[in-house]
């Protein structure tokens, strides 16, 4: 177990280094990008540009610049945004993270519950008309782009039907923190949660259905039935357990990616000022420090999600040992 943790930590550091270095190189080697100009604002004089370059260490050699940025990010933690002078990047991300985590956690709960229900229902009702109907529904869910669903949801709940009894409870766009008002938090996030989870409900229901049907053909499921277990127990203890392995790995990866600013479109559409929203803004402003910090933060969550998936694997399947 200890070797597993140490190895994973080293792996995390390596992944974060590679990703940050890659983003750094990509940023500076992309033609037409001059961070000094982005910092200086409109029509700067050459002297000001030179001063800025010096102040931000942009006249240093390439590796030194990278090292300086990493130092500011990790050690002194006072990396400053290029576009928004005086704003420290690290606290900014920490301030944005709760909104993103709220959004993604809530959506994950919805999509896990719904996709399990749909996947199991479809697998059990195979051979009836319900199964293909559910799967077509799932396919429609997968096919609808999240930003479109979000805009349509806004159109319905914020304008067209806002005054009807159905959606009069929907607050204006934006994020209310849980500590401020739990009810406001829930009301404000419900529509975004549903919007974000639709794609995953469809995807996961299909994956789970396929896995259940595959596991259903395993010899050990037949054994379980031959033992005289109830159908319910055969399903929950044997079939579903065997079907969960790819479901869990998929979930870990998607969840990690969403926490790592992957819910950007949903956040932008619903004006939730989370990490994805921040990422969206900093991309528009070519704000390298913020981009860099978010990328590193994202890499951390993705690696973390992978570790959790590995631990879950070992729990699900004793043949997989943690070494």
């Amino acid at each position, binding site marked *: 177990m200890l070797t597993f943790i140490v190895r994973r930590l080293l792996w995390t550091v390596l992944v974060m280094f590679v990703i940050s270095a890659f983003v750094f190189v990509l940023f500076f080697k992309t033609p037409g990008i001059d961070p000094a100009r982005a910092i200086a604002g409109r029509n700067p004089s050459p002297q000001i540009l030179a001063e800025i370059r010096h102040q931000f260490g942009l006249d240093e050699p390439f590796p030194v610049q990278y090292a300086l940025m990493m130092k500011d990010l990790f050690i002194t933690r006072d990396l400053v945004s290029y576009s928004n002078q005086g704003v420290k990047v690290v606290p900014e991300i920490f301030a944005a993270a709760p909104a993103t985590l709220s959004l993604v956690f809530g959506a994950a709960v919805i999509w896990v519950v719904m996709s399990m229900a749909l996947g199991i229902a479809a697998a059990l009702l*195979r*051979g009836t008309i319900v199964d293909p109907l559910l799967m077509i529904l799932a396919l429609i869910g997968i096919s609808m782009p999240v930003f479109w669903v979000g805009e349509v949801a806004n159109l319905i709940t914020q304008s067209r039907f806002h005054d009807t009894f159905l959606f009069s409870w929907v607050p204006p766009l934006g994020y209310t923190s849980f500590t401020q008002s739990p009810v406001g938090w829930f009301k404000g996030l419900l529509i975004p949660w549903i919007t974000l989870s639709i794609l995953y409900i469809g995807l996961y229901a299909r994956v789970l259905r396929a896995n259940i049907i595959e596991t*259903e053909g*395993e*010899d*050990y499921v*037949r*054994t*379980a*039935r*031959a*033992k*005289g*277990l*109830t*159908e319910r*127990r055969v399903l929950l*203890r*044997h079939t579903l*357990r*065997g079907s969960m392995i790819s479901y869990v790995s998929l979930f870990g990866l998607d969840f990690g990616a969403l926490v790592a600013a992957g819910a950007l479109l949903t956040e932008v559409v619903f004006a939730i000022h989370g990490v994805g929203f921040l990422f969206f803004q900093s991309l528009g402003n070519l704000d390298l420090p913020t981009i860099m910090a978010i990328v590193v933060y994202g890499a951390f969550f993705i690696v973390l999600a992978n570790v959790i998936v590995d631990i879950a694997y070992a729990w*699900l*399947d*004793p*043949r997989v040992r943690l070494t």
Partner: protein
Amino acid sequence: MADPLLEVRNLKVSFRTEDGTVQAVDGVSLTLAEGETLGIVGESGSGKSVTMMSVMRLITDPNARFEGQVLYKGRDLMALTQEQIRGIRGAGIAMIFQDPMTSLNPVYRVGWQIAEQIQAHDKVSKQAAHARTIDLLKSVGIPHASERVDDYPHQFSGGMRQRVMIAMALSCNPDIVIADEPTTALDVTIQAQILGLIRKLRDDFGTAVVLITHDMGVVAEMADRVAVMYAGRIVEEGSRRDVFYRPQHPYTWGLLGSIARLDRPKPRRLATIPGLPPSLVNLPPGCAFGPRCAYRFPACAQTPPLTDKLGNGHLDACLLDPQAKKDARAGATPPELVEDAT
């Protein structure tokens, strides 16, 4: 004779497929007395497994159709509700499967899997189920049973896993154990051990055994009675002695002829049965073995019934008259049945 423990009456199982209806089991009738061992022999696809799986109602394919009756202690299993058949599976009729590598759930400890079955049928505490599991593992010859009960299936060898399966099958003292090719996936040396174990447990527990196999050797060693299946039908059925020494059906002759014998001069090649088993999709009427049979005559175009021609409980489904069979069998293996395998 008292009512048999298990009686299969004219069981038919068919599967709807894209190519047409597959008649996997076509009117099989069987009886099994208490404590008896019945061997069901046949090649792959002859319907032997499907027959016994249908008895347990373990075929979940929605395209399967069943006809006929399966009487167990006078109750028709085919007419029971899910909950009623569940109470019989594992407790009244237990099953041992072919491949112990895949028949145990890899994610649970073996002891847990056996205790799960005990607790599904008997209202006993976890501790009691666990203790009984250890006793069972001991009785099937697993060393250090009290420690190994907490191991996972992948920590056992194939032979040991099959012992675990046998312990599981016996865990609720069933009247009948159906063993579906229990030794096929094992090494030859382990096969003998497992067969020995099944025989010993059968004698100790007085359990009736249905042994499904394609191995005539296994049948010769274990069975009291033998049923030979071909293309979903029983073609010959009788006591082990009758079937082995006085086989009546040309297919049985072929099966027996294909066994290497140590008490005879070594043949240049083992005999084979020419041709292949027929496809079970839209099987034409008539004797299914007809196209491969050297003794076919016009009457074989009609499906031959399984009848007791000799009047001694030895049934066969061949229309040849007994004298003709005797003549044909006179020269050990009929020359027509010997084919050079090149």
